[in-house]
């Protein structure tokens, strides 16, 4: 089978457990703090926002947590997702490297996000919640939660970052088709949104602002909880079905990666592909290289500070230790809305801080160029976020070519770009710009970091 392109698993191979990387950490995870008391946040503090089972997952140090059968049955709608050997891309690049990609665009919403959206909806439904609020950047997450709401009979209200709301009108239509409501954020519906609009009426929004709005709505009603699409430990853990499947599929290919690449915004798709492999490394397995790719104009891992900060602009969340550009930092507009987040998942920050992951950043035009190269070879146009992973993988493959070494590269193609044609159109017409962040604004945002002893 030397020409094999797709490595496909049987539905019975859908993982039966999520993998929790905290079990294999050599250093304890750094606890989130209550901003008022500066004490570690306990389950009670999170109770108003999340159902208890998700809170227990958030703090668990068990290595594996069982995936309920009812949820695995829904995962069957698109899982296991295929692993591709990018033979045509390898030829196009004329590289000795072997490139594999895990394709999460086969999900109903077109990305990896339903892996956790359905899990979160499942546990909320189980605990009697009627309504979920959330934020979304590019709309991948909002679409996924809308879908999950439809599957489990929950009302879903989505605050979508305004710049993406305007760029991607079909995302809103998608969410509404599944019965969800979608507002452009900042909105006039919340105090957090009103405050931002009063200060800057043309504000293009950010994930940090949208989170504040969604959290504010959730805490106002007992029957309403909040769902976060990334960043939190349990969200990252739900995504590990990706890497666990990939491990089996690499076995089918009789191969194992030397390098694993993922793009990072909040850190969930990256963790999904990377953590199961990193876990093997932490337990004495192969010493692989792991690369996190982020946008150059929202570079939390490469330019941010590793410090306690708020997860949102409105400063409603607990303080978490993460790589942050400052909760007040509003990244310049770019088309990778899912990566425009000032912070980073604490677990991803910790593995970067401890040297297990090498962060790198690229501008959006070079990422689009990589995406188009990939699309022409492989036939899939990636989401703008995923283009960052594509770019990272191509750079590694070209390095192999320069050095004359044959390495095995695995990356996560976390979503397709079929909702992002306006962005591709702009790219093709040369209208796409690489707006850098303003150094002064970044310095100000960093100066505003909360003081933690």
């Amino acid at each position, binding site marked *: 089978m030397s020409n094999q392109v797709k490595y496909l698993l049987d539905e019975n191979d859908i993982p039966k457990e999520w993998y*929790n990387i*905290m*079990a*294999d*950490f*050599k*250093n*304890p995870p750094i606890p989130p703090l209550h901003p008022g008391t500066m004490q570690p946040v306990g389950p009670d503090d999170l109770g108003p926002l999340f159902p208890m089972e998700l809170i227990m997952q958030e703090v668990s*140090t*068990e*290595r*594996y947590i069982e995936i309920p059968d009812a949820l695995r049955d829904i995962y069957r709608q698109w899982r296991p997702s295929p692993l591709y050997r990018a033979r045509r891309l390898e030829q196009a690049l004329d590289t000795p490297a072997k490139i594999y990609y895990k394709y999460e665009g086969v999900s109903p919403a077109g990305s990896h996000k339903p892996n956790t959206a359905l899990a979160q909806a499942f546990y909320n439904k189980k605990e009697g919640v009627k309504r979920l609020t959330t934020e979304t950047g590019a709309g991948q997450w909002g679409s996924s939660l809308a879908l999950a709401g439809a599957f489990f009979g929950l009302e879903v209200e989505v605050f979508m970052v305004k710049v993406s709301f305007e760029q991607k009108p079909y995302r809103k239509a998608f969410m509404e088709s599944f019965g969800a409501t979608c507002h452009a954020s900042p909105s006039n519906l919340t105090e957090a949104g009103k405050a931002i609009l009063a200060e800057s009426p043309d504000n293009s929004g950010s994930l940090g602002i949208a989170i504040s709005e969604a959290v504010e709505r959730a805490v106002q009603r007992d029957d309403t909880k909040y769902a976060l699409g990334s960043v939190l430990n349990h969200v990252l853990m739900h995504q590990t079905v990706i890497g666990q499947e990939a491990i089996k599929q690499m076995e089918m290919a009789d191969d194992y990666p030397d390098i694993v690449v993922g793009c990072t915004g909040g850190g969930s798709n990256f963790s999904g592909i990377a953590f199961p492999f990193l876990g*093997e490394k*932490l*337990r*004495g397995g192969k010493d692989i290289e792991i690369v996190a790719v982020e946008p150059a104009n929202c570079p939390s891992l490469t330019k941010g500070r590793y410090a306690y900060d708020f997860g949102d602009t409105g400063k409603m969340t607990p303080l978490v230790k993460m790589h942050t550009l400052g909760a007040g930092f509003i990244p310049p507009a770019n088309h990778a809305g899912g990566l425009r987040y000032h912070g980073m998942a604490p677990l991803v920050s910790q593995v970067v801080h401890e040297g297990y992951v090498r962060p790198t950043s690229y501008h959006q035009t070079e990422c689009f160029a990589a995406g188009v190269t990939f699309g022409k070879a492989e036939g899939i146009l990636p989401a703008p976020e995923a283009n960052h992973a594509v770019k990272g993988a191509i750079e590694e493959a070209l390095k192999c070519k320069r050095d004359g070494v044959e390495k095995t590269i695995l990356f996560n193609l976390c979503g397709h770009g079929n909702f992002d044609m306006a962005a591709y159109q702009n790219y093709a017409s040369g209208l796409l710009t690489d707006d850098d962040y303003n150094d002064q604004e970044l310095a100000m945002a960093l100066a505003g970091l909360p003081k933690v002893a």
Partner: protein
Amino acid sequence: MSRRLQRRFDLLARAGRPGLMPFAVAGDPDPVTTDLVFETLIQSGGDLIEIGIPARDPNMDGPVIRRAHARAAAVGAGSLDAISQAARLRERDSETPLILMGYAAELRSAGPAHYMEALANAGADGLLMVDAEPLERLAWSQLARERDIAFIQIIAGKVDARSLPAPAWARSGFVYCVASDGPTGGTPPAVAVLASRIGISRRLTGLPVVAGFGVRTPAMAMAVGGFADAVAIGTVVVDALEKSLASGHLHHAAAEAVGAVVAGLAEGVAEARLVQRQTIK
């Protein structure tokens, strides 16, 4: 991990031989004898010393060690006697790592922060808690980490990447590989099985492995020591003490009897380096 423990494993690695970790219960059978016994454990070749914290219900131990706990309890020895035993040994020996081993019931009533502080002040290097609840284990491991005390976890029976005790950050110093979930002093498994379990445990945890597989004879110590970083001996030590007590010996006489057995086993592990070299080739 504790620097003293690190230095000792480094020293053993340079010497190319496994270490020996003998065990006795603090306070068994009286304060004078127990003090002499522990001193003898070091003098007759113990590279690390395991001090049993007297327990009311040592349900993971076999009959021999249970009787030792009962004798200690009969003279009123408790969790703090293990600490003072460690402190007295530390005064006489600045380098040999001292590991306290106890059951959660006694440690709970002693109070985690208070006990860990006392343990550190006594100059002890590690704590092994055999039956703690998961969350309790995390809390104790955190206290241990803050004081640079090794928090030792047991790997029982078959070991693989899934069954490895979690989380990794709650273990340090070394891992204690035991034959099974059954009580101490039972029949050890075959040498090939030991070799594989010890090798897997070392690779998965990245920590030295101390093996406690019911080693009773110098030959067994040599066989197990061929694969482990140190060999734990408990039942055989306590048994020697018990027999000596039964023939009416106490104090020096009892300690000498224990010392003779430990010295024999120490010779066994010293031979183990030959096995180890052959294994490496």
